[in-house]
């Protein structure tokens, strides 16, 4: 089989006398930028704590209420920025071969799908209403009310009847009595077949 003689002799880049081979591998991480990144990170951490502990902010005469959701959004936004800084500077992504960034991209893609889609389904299911979790610890129909007091159940037959009535009577009772996942209310059933009768 053919092979050029170069392949047999030693590739110069393998020996240390020659420096060219190493150049693009060596980006020296600069001191001051890195220090600044660090300072910014600490500041952002402060910011996270500060925002998470405030309940409303007043700009001029407009007041923005800080609900839980907003807290999460702000905190996560800051966290993402911090992570980005660490990745770009401390972890050298800014200076490296783009391949490493591609790896990170693929990872973020997978994580987003995983968490995003899973939560999407669970969220929909939550509206379908979960049966009281304590139900099966104590058995029977015993459960806890919102205040956490134990409430004696009424037996499964009675529950069944109530559910049945709740079914036909009040759509309001839907969410508890008929929490089948994702069922729209029978009243506004898009494309529902006629019941065959």
């Amino acid at each position, binding site marked *: 089989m053919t092979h050029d003689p170069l392949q047999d002799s030693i590739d110069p880049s393998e020996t240390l006398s020659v420096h060219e081979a190493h150049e693009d591998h060596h980006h020296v991480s600069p001191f001051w930028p890195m220090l600044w990144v660090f300072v910014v990170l600490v500041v952002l951490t402060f910011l996270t704590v500060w925002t998470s502990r405030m309940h409303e902010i007043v700009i001029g005469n407009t007041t923005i209420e800080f609900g839980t959701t907003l807290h999460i959004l702000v905190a996560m936004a800051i966290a993402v920025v911090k992570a980005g800084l660490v990745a770009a500077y401390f972890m050298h992504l800014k200076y490296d071969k783009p391949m490493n960034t591609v790896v990170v991209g693929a*990872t973020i893609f997978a994580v987003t799908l995983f968490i995003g889609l899973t939560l999407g389904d669970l969220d929909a299911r939550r509206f379908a209403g979960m049966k009281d979790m304590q139900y099966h610890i104590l058995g029977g129909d015993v459960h806890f009310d919102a205040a956490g007091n134990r409430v004696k159940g009424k037996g499964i037959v009675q529950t069944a009847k109530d559910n049945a009535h709740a079914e036909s009577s009040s759509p309001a009772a839907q969410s508890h009595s008929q929490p089948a996942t994702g069922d729209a209310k029978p009243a506004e059933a898009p494309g529902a077949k006629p019941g065959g009768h």
Partner: protein
Amino acid sequence: MSGHHHESYLAPRETLWKSIMAWVYTLDHKRIGVMYLIATTFAFLLAGVFALLVRAELWEPTRTIVDEATNQTRVVGQFLPGWTERGLPVTPNNAYNRAFTLHGAIMVFLFIIPAVPAALGNIFLPIMLGAKDVAFPRLNLLSWYTYVFGGLFAVWSLASGGAETGWTFYTPYSSTTNWGSTTAMVLAAFILGFSSIFTGINFVATVHKLRVPGMGWFDMPLFAWAIYATAIIQVLATPVLGITLLLLVLERTLRIGIFDPAMGGDPVLFQHFFWFYSHPAVYIMILPGMGIASELIAVHCHKKIFGYRAIAFSSIAIAAISFLVWAHHMFTAQTAAFNAVFSALTFLVAIPTAIKVFNWISTMYKASIALNTPMLYAMSFLFCFTIGGLTGPPLATLAVDIHLHDTYFVVAHFHYVMMGGTVMAFLGGLHHWWPKMFGKMYNEFWGRVGAVLVFIGFNVTFFIQFFMGTQGMPRRYATYVEEFTSFHKISTVGSWILFLGFLIHALVFAHSLVAGRAAPKNPWGGLTFEWEADSPPVEHNFDHEPVITHGPYDFESVVPPHCSEQDFPLHPAAQNGRAHGH
């Protein structure tokens, strides 16, 4: 680094002790690959035995050879007596449940996931790229020992009562059951996951950094492409299995209650966690099989593969889409809106798959097809995989899947893809590369006999199961209603034919190792680098780093290396611009 460079990688060292140590500490990807091959074969036999037991159990709807005295379950109980954990009796169904669980768990985690990438991939990926070894030989060895370690846990579980949760370990059953030693089996799968991750990292880096100078992405053999796509999934999906099983173990030991409804947890969350890995995992299983099929068809048809780029890209496309479809395993558990979304996404994955099949068959057009064992396997791969693929759409279609979900239709579909696809391709690849791996030819005639028997046995076993599924025979059933008796009988008979086929293959390979004639460097007239190396290759694969002079499938313009022009003549039309493999 001393004088072993010109000997076969199989050559023994000066003393027996040194030879053994040379295998124990080896960093040679070929040796690690061979060790993987042996281990996975063992796992395959073990799980195969359980499969035979399962089929035998189903010979009769309720009871067969009953030994009522020992309260063992019918057939399986005869073989697996005395698995009583914490004084619990072996009830009539229980040993059967363990048998199908162990069949599934061992086949999936110990055989089919590592079999092609970690065994054949390990041996041939670096050679095909013209490299001396994989990127991280130590990591490679670590991956092998991790596999062994995980295997030990599986054996521990086996010895201490097995598991009977089904290989899917659905909570809350798996987190509460007292039968067998589920925890050990879960830990086994957990550890095996890491072995798989290490292999994946290794192969990605190898493909990126160790291609021979001048080999561009589209000069790579399609097997390398498939392994690359597989490795990506292994890296990106397996960690989620790790965390899932870790949480499940904690659920069983610390009762953390995340998946346990009795403590406010949510079992469906587990299903999402599990399938986020385990659906991509089925592509970890099939993609390498597709890669092998591409090699087999191209080489044994002696024809430039049709639509090289289409096949290459479809591998990557499948890898990407595989992350988008997991929830189609939960159509009966999920909300309507999500089912619709995932149903649509699931159909996407069928498109690149279909493209592959079309390309493979077009490759056979105007080819020069040698109907030897590897090609027979390539064709039975095409046959079975096409069926497996075409029975996917019914399961992706919402209305139909609601009916077919968790019935024998799913069982048949899965086996047509996994066994009819991956295992057929694996066996084909085994015959294809056997001369290269061990430097011995196998007996062609008996090889073909085995191939035909496996093909017939497989189809007899599983085709009938589609009918059972459409009639609503649920899976994982130890006892069933009498209407299905004749179906199950046929299926069971098929499993015996299948067994016979594998037996013949075992004998053929054994004979080849003992008395097979020495293999030439290039018995099939292949053009990829492994056919330029010796059979078996030397320690660093090549005496001199090979130079890329032609594409992997340029059969029309190149006489294969180490082959005479009499055997592989060039068509006069292609004479101009002819190159030569040497």
